[in-house]
């Protein structure tokens, strides 16, 4: 995924924004889809697609517990994504100045 695509993807939904804020403020959060959804005032089915997008770009990681998928912040993936977006924004700013 290109930097532009990553940037646009993260901006594409309010839910992704809520999830990013939740995991950045609470990096030790490890929870099921329903548990994560509850913490941002939603239900699991409503956030599933956005969660999958974030897993695909390695911002979130997954693991199995008791047949359920649990989510956690992939700290190295999240850091890499942040750097990619920061560099993209610097380039965009540079090219418009």
């Amino acid at each position, binding site marked *: 995924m290109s930097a532009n695509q990553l940037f646009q993807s993260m901006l594409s939904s309010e839910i992704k924004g809520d999830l990013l804020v939740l995991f950045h*403020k609470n*990096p*030790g*959060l*490890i*929870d*099921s889809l329903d548990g994560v959804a509850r913490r941002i005032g939603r239900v699991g089915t409503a956030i599933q697609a956005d969660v999958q997008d974030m897993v695909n770009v390695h911002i979130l990681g997954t693991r199995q*517990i*008791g047949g359920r998928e*649990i989510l956690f912040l992939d700290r190295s993936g999240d850091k890499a994504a942040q750097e990619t977006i920061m560099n993209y924004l610097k380039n965009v700013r540079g090219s418009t100045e």
Partner: protein
Amino acid sequence: MARQKTGIVELDAMLRGGFLERDAVMVAGSAGTGKTTLALQHLVNGITKFGEPGIYLTFEQLPDQIYRDAENFGWDLKKLEEQDKFRLVCTSPDLLLEPDGAGQLLDSTIKEIQPRRMVIDSLNHLEMYLPHGGDMRKEAYRILNYIKTKGISPLAIWETQQSAGQAFSVTDVGMSFLVDCILLLKFVEIESAMRKALVIMKMRGSDHEKELKEYAITPQGFKIQGSFSEYEGVMSGSPHKVASERFVDMFQKASEKHKGGLSH
């Protein structure tokens, strides 16, 4: 016998040097008695004073609230996390109750920071999520033993109901026998003000202070202030002054009244 200090000097003295290493400790008390503060301080002191990394496992409170509350006492938990000496893990109780839940949730964190202390906040949340027919004692026993076999000393928080005059019971599900040490925190009403009392209810394998002590939550954290030697019935929640102190009070009041009469 190796001791694990809390770093709260007066409390360590009450414990005759600290908790016994690898003992399961329960801090029980009603809402607002300072259980979380005491537990956090035990972890922070473990890291900053004794070089023992720690994990705080929470179910209800989100980590960002705990970071904020800790900052009020001058404890920078995020900095300790950056130094790989502390982790604040937040999850749902039902995941921890899964057969391999503890391992899946905690093994990687334990490998990462090699903790010596862990706080579970709180066992009440586990009880809420027990499947129908589940046995809380069995599950709590399993989880506490998982932590101990990793070489970590667990400290579990248990919220009790506070009812004045009621017969004392640490837990509703009879879990006192599962833990090695129980600290009870309690509100007491003295002269129309709510004060706080701490008592060591149990400490397997060690002598400990038997007296109730008054404590307060100060800007620096949990602080033990003194005893309730002037009072009896403190455990009831509504103590009264002991006979000798009542006599002194009566004498002083009579004396002041007498002086007031003489001056007219």
